[in-house]
């Protein structure tokens, strides 16, 4: 009951957020929701399934380029978006194959290399992608009753997509798949011995996470109305990774919290001028040293500190002699 109430309040906050705000704030909110979707996807791959990926920005890029090219060719957004998402799903599936062979740092570097290769292709194949100039002038979707050309309307459009994506993800992580993803993260060998086809579920973790990146890209394209290779370089993947880890990998709401931190914190720290990135990086290091589980983990830890621990003698029985 309390949970539902809080969820309702959060929803109301999201609905009223752009009211009375300038377009800049509305833009930041749209950006937050868009990156929130990309981070949600990475949270599935990394947080739930334990597969590190440093290529989420390239999936945003694939989604954004596909959407841009199709909408510039006159397709409606609603037709372009599914194609963008499907493309990312398939490429994500392919990128999952290295994860079947290597883990951890090695996987991190394979995905990093993939991201940089994507950047090179996007920059060099100017016949398709516009090269370093990129593509611009994508129309914002018009749904007849709701024309999203103006900022508030576009915000509600973004919010609707965001909520749909969040509900869908909630459904996935609550289903037996969610348990399978966690099993893969916690103990893949044990999971395999219990009948879990770890190969397939690993590929699915990549494909679904990447599809979310593609969806974020499909929103990015009409939001910024400009796509260029630099927006999807490795640094952007790092930013999305920060959102997930700073929020707290493996917690459902962590990416939203993390995305808010990464996108809004620079605004808060703006007064420090050139120092803000330093302060930011320093804060991340301290957070990782103090609480590797991220902000949500930090919150949980603080809560535990103020609650007396329950004595649990029953957890000791049968302990190693």
């Amino acid at each position, binding site marked *: 009951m309390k949970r539902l109430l809080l969820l309702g309040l959060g929803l109301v906050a999201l609905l009223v957020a752009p009211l009375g705000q300038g377009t800049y704030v509305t833009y930041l909110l749209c950006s937050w929701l868009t990156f929130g979707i990309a981070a949600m996807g990475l949270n599935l791959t990394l947080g739930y399934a334990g597969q590190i990926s440093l290529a989420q920005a390239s999936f945003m890029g694939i989604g954004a380029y596909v959407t841009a090219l199709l909408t510039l060719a006159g397709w409606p957004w609603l037709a372009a978006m599914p194609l963008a998402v499907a493309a990312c799903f398939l490429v994500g599936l392919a990128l999952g194959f290295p994860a079947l062979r290597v883990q951890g740092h090695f996987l991190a570097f394979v995905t990093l290399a993939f991201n940089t290769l994507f950047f090179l292709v996007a920059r060099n194949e100017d016949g398709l992608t516009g090269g370093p100039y990129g593509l611009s002038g994508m129309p914002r979707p018009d749904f007849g009753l709701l024309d999203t050309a103006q900022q508030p309307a576009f915000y509600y459009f973004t919010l609707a997509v965001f909520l749909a994506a969040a509900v869908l993800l909630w459904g996935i992580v609550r289903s*037996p798949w969610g348990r399978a993803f966690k099993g893969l993260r916690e103990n893949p*060998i044990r999971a395999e011995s*219990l009948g879990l086809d770890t190969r397939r579920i690993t590929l699915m973790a990549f494909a679904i996470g990447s599809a979310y990146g593609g969806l974020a890209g499909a929103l990015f394209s009409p939001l910024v109305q400009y796509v260029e290779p630099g927006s999807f370089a490795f640094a952007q993947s790092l930013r999305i990774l920060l959102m997930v880890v700073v929020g707290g990998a493996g917690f459902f709401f962590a990416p939203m919290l993390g995305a808010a931190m990464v996108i809004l914190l620079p605004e808060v720290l703006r007064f420090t001028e050139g120092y803000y990135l330093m302060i930011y990086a320093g804060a991340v290091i301290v957070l990782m040293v103090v609480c590797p589980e991220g902000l949500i983990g930090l919150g949980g830890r603080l809560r535990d500190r103020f609650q007396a621990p329950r004595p649990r003698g029953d957890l000791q029985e049968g302990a190693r002699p």
Partner: protein
Amino acid sequence: MTVPVLAVRDIAKGFGAIRAVDGVSFEVRPGEILGLIGPNGSGKSTLFNCILGQLTPDRGSVEVNGRSVSGRRPFELSRLGVGRTFQQLSVFPKMSVLDNVILAGQEHRGSLLGRLFAAPDAGLTAEAERLIAFFRLGHLRDEMAGALSYGQQKLVDAAMAFMAGPSLVLLDEPAGGVNLTMLAGLKERLIAYNREHGTTFVVIEHNMEFVMSLCTRIIVLAEGRIIAEGPPEAVRADPRVIDAYLGG
């Protein structure tokens, strides 16, 4: 003549010049509790891994319920009705005991895509709770498995091995590191499960007391070969076995 639950035929596996397993064959009948013992380096673990598909044997074959399982991946083996436990602690530490046990069953229900649309617990809560209660872990149902004591985690591991209703369960040193009180409980539960469901067990174990009182039949390995086979009392008295343990 019934089909053996497990048939191991002429398995051999070498590492370089060492022949870890050198032509081992045996069969396990339904409902049996077979103990597999031998001194260190006798090839028990290698044989176990060959049966479970973790290692590819140099020659020989393994059949479960009359079907060859050579070259199968571990998850396929599980779906063919082979459960196992691990020597090392092998639970999912950041999941609740209930989720651990449900995960052990859910992959045997429906298709991959079907599971995406299935109920969150895949309809397995009641069954999992029964099994948790059977292993006397009911009060710990919602605890994180990683927070449990060593012995309790061993019980969770065992419960997981039984969740899918296997016809054969391979237990890899179930007594290792468990204290005496807990050990008696574990043995009693395993025997009870065997009686109730007729599930066949193959047990690798160092703890002689445990094996002798649990198993109905024992195979002794030394230097990669079977040197003795029979009921516990007979094996215990076999001079070759004593020789292998003391003289080795």
